[in-house]
């Protein structure tokens, strides 16, 4: 049984991106996203207001091996 998210997601993609379903496997891939949505549900609230993408470069520098 196909998850109910598939049909409305297809319509949203068509409307927002102008991309239409390329094949049956794509439908399967959309159904598989239910798992990802559940994972993201668990992470709600972890982003803080000041977080932003450039913090990654700073973290790479800060997390280098300490001098021995």
């Amino acid at each position, binding site marked *: 049984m196909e998850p109910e998210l598939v049909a409305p*997601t297809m319509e*949203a*993609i068509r409307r*927002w*991106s*102008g*991309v*239409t*379903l*390329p*094949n*049956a*496997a*794509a*439908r*399967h*891939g*959309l159904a*598989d*996203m239910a798992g*990802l949505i559940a*994972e*993201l549900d*668990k*992470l709600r609230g*972890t*982003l803080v207001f000041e*977080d*932003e*993408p*450039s*913090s*990654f*470069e*700073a*973290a*790479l*520098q*800060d*997390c*280098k*091996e300490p001098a021995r």
Partner: protein
Amino acid sequence: MNAPVSPASLADLSMTEAADAFAAGEVKAEALVRACLARIDAHDRQVNAVIRLDRDAALAAAAAADAARAAGTRPGSLAGVPMMHKDMYYRAGKVSTCGSKIRRDHVPEVTATVLERLDAAGAIDMGTLNMAEFAQNPTGHNAHFGHCHNPWSLDYCTGGSSSGSGAGVAARFFYAALGSDTGGSIRLPATLCGVTGLKPTQTRVSRAGVMPLSFSADNVGPLVRTARDAARFLAVTAGHDPKDPTSARESVPDYEAALTGDIRGLRIAVCDTYFFDGADSPVTAAFEAAMAVLRARGAIVTRITAPVLPAVAAYTAIISRVEGAAIHANWMREHPGDYATHLSARLYGGYAIPGHYYVEALSRRGPLLREFVAQALTGYDLVATPTLRTRVPSLAETDIDADPENWSRFMAVSANTRPFNYLGLPTISIPCGFDDRGLPIGLQLAGRPFAEARVLQAADAFQRDTDWHRRVPAL
């Protein structure tokens, strides 16, 4: 080299052995090229690793290298060594297909910085290699140029996306190859084909002139025979490049100097969270045996947990899918039928992910890197995991084009490699055994940012006491 090189063994040399033999005058570049061409001629019909073979140009380059050496010119660190590269490294004036129908005739106007650096070190470029279409699958399927086949057993996956790079190094078609790694595309073919593959720290190597997949997670690195090969290759290719403003300004150390074999006191964390979920028993057995080898050399191996990993895994799934969907949007609108079924299906899902989650995934990357380092690399030098949790899958059981029900098996292939792309950490995969079907198993070692020397040191120490990386598939 301590002993003269016999012609029969030339193709079996490691990259550094071949380079050092050339530098010492023990072997000519022409002999190295001819040894590789003979292997390709004999076996590529089975393996299908090669897209374009520049036979005459390679022989001409070898003759020039031999003449320069005879004239007393000091050779570069990779002089005389035949290589081939994934067909997504642009060379001005040469077709770069990206493994696709859409770019089958694409002729770039620029040359990738990594190719220029390899050229400057004297490497001989023999042509281009098969790959997953637009570097977008972890298995090595390719609907346009034919699937690449695992040299250890032809019905099995090579791993992707750098399929020809892994299969060709394993089959002794050349000594080294560039791969690219956005979710495991260097480490997976290294594992599945039984060779060594290094994904450097994010930003460590220039991506100028390299086909993009996901600009936040793309990495450039080598597939080779040994950790020493990877060390020398990285030393040539790493370092800031003005043509790639995102490339790091970190100095490039002498990676080979770190390969002392001495890992006494090295602290290795084995992370029980996530990486062993659903692992096959031959994989866990080979992994535990590998830990015993490292312990015997003096490493201290400790089991840990890293509760941050499920969050890392969730965000990892977002970034490359959204970025890939964005850069392919025009082609997906105009001629989606020019993509393989599995690729258009995968890209399609990227348009469904809300933009705020994409920004969240990028914004949480720094904090989650800090959390992972606190949980898994504070008090420890390296994290060890299996590179692939399962035995090598067959081409048939991961073929989405044939059966969409194979979707979850296909996506699971990169479960253990993807998190290190999100975290940006340097990670190597080295062979550590074979399963009950005679296919390779890989050990993955990850270190702190820019700690490639530490990763290579441990991998090299392991390879001093094992011979998995020396084994040759019987084609």
